[in-house]
């Protein structure tokens, strides 16, 4: 007769969300997250948050100083700077987000395939990635601009391609370690296909590493995309964008009004630092969970 095991009480709920967030992110990570959430939601709810339309010009108040009606002042065409920065956050966030989503999906697929199949396929993929590493993202962006014309789409496509090798390299390394774990053998023994094992079993176990990598790269993507817009190849004026604001603000700065360039530049730095800190914290947690 089989012995039975008495039902042990099971803890119904885990620790609260707040506790878990603190455990994974720490103080610096939490602050970064809050900063990002505030800026991102301001951009997302721009129509309700921004006091003015970002495109409306008012030639009667050009280069206005901060005042109750224009908290950050106005630019060369009398447009409200605060409103432009809030609206500009949209492209500044959406562009890099698209870049990261596309490059993470393709890069993860390449990395896992490389690690799983191994041998010649692994070699070919590795050499191909080496070639991609050699070229800076801006080059891909320039090629994409040449094909699709200057704009956010071209910049996003170019940057997405240039980010693939970074993701692929990290994922391949992690997948190589993961696939040697016994549970993967246990899956093979049950007759699962390679695709099923990779997608349903490997991928969920790699998600912390992939997320950490994605968040950290998000910061770089923000800088690079802003840089491309600054050069006039990305978002086109008069559409508000922080990169564009730095560029137009530079003109104004030469006339003695550095406010716009300063504000936009500061915002970019803040967002990038926040993303990097967040990514670092996530990577550290993923690393310590492995041990």
């Amino acid at each position, binding site marked *: 007769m*089989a*012995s*039975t*095991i008495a*039902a042990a009480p*099971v803890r119904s709920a885990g620790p609260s969300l707040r506790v878990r967030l603190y455990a994974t992110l720490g103080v610096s990570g939490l602050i970064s997250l809050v900063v990002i959430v505030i800026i991102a939601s301001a951009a997302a709810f721009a129509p309700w948050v921004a006091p003015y339309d970002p495109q409306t010009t008012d030639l009667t108040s050009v280069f206005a100083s901060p005042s109750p009606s224009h908290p950050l002042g106005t630019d060369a065409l009398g447009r409200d700077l605060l409103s432009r920065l809030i609206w500009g956050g949209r492209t500044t966030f959406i562009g890099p987000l698209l870049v990261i989503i596309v490059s993470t999906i393709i890069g993860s697929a390449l990395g896992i395939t490389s690690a799983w199949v*191994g041998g010649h396929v692994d070699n070919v993929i590795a050499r191909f990635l080496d070639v991609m590493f050699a070229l800076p993202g801006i080059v891909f962006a320039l090629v994409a601009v040449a094909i699709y014309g200057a704009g956010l789409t071209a910049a996003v496509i170019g940057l997405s391609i240039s980010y693939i090798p970074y993701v692929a390299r990290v994922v391949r390394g992690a997948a190589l370690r993961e696939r040697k*774990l*016994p*549970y993967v*053998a*246990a*899956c*093979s*023994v*049950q*007759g*699962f*296909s390679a695709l*099923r094992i990779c997608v*349903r*079993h490997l991928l*969920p*176990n790699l998600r912390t590493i992939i997320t950490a990598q994605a968040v950290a790269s998000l910061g770089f993507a923000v800088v690079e995309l802003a840089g491309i817009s600054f050069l006039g190849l990305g978002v086109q004026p008069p559409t508000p964008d922080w990169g564009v604001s730095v560029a137009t603000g530079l003109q104004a700065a030469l006339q003695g009004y550095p406010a716009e360039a300063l504000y936009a530049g500061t915002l970019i730095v803040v967002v990038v630092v926040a993303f990097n800190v967040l990514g670092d914290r996530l990577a550290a947690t993923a690393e310590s969970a492995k041990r």
Partner: protein
Amino acid sequence: MTLLDVHDLCLEIRNRVRTRRIIDHVSFSVAKGEALGLVGESGCGKSMTARSLMGLLPPGAKLEGEVVFEGSDIVRMSQPELRAYRATKVAMIFQDPRAHTNPVRSIGDFLTEAQCEVGGVKRSVARRRAIALLDSVGIPDGERRLSQYPHQLSGGLLQRVMIASALASDPALLLADEPTTALDVTTQAEVMAILGRLRREHEVALLFITHNLELAAATCDRTAVMYAGRIVEVQKSSALHDRPLHPYTSGLLCSRPSIEHTERRLMVIPGRPVAAYDADDGCAFAPRCAYAEPRCRMERPRDETFDKAAVACHRAAELQGSLPTGYVEAVS
């Protein structure tokens, strides 16, 4: 009727520097519903033998010989055939259940995934079957267990889940690779009882790998003893216990603690085990064998058959019946 027939199985693993032979001409067979124990010291190749039967080999491994399962040779199977064979014909239970379950998938996923995706069973049906299986391995509150994760279960409980999962596909052969080594002794007894009962209920053949001679004898119809990648002796478990044919088996039996005597020191087999690739030309056990003759070091013994038993020893015939099986008065 023979279910599995392993014939002259050799496994070599090649790395950059050298090729190492892990399994050396292993032959054995398992009948339908029979339980065969595979005993040996660590590193003698018993786990690799089981893995070879599953086609679960490390990179650089080269398998030779025949593994005929229900008429088809596993060594020569294509990938899809091998997958079908793994999914429906054999199942494997591992030593460390925690390492062999995906930590991020629930017990329910673990038990139903193979049924749903490979067996094409509906999810609700698979869940009900999973609960029934859990019940049969002594876990009554299956419904609740399905939503739990591996880290919430104890080792013994998780090993029961593994057994349930192994039986889910109604296999004809169950490979158990030291299923109780990682468990404490009381849990070990429970798990073995469940394994033995289910094996008989489901009429599954069992290849039971262990380094515990007693456990093998208690569970298995026949026991095979492995040394340095070879099977040195196969016999009915009871006969192996009473009348071992190979000096190595006798040595293993003598090194057990006994209830009747309280020895200050247990007998040991002198020297240390060698791997198949380190063995000399002669009998691999010869350097440690108390009965070794010059010819034992020169030529490799062939398998000799003594009614229903097989042994690979030059002196098996003359030593038959005279090998000790337990406590021997200390010679020195």
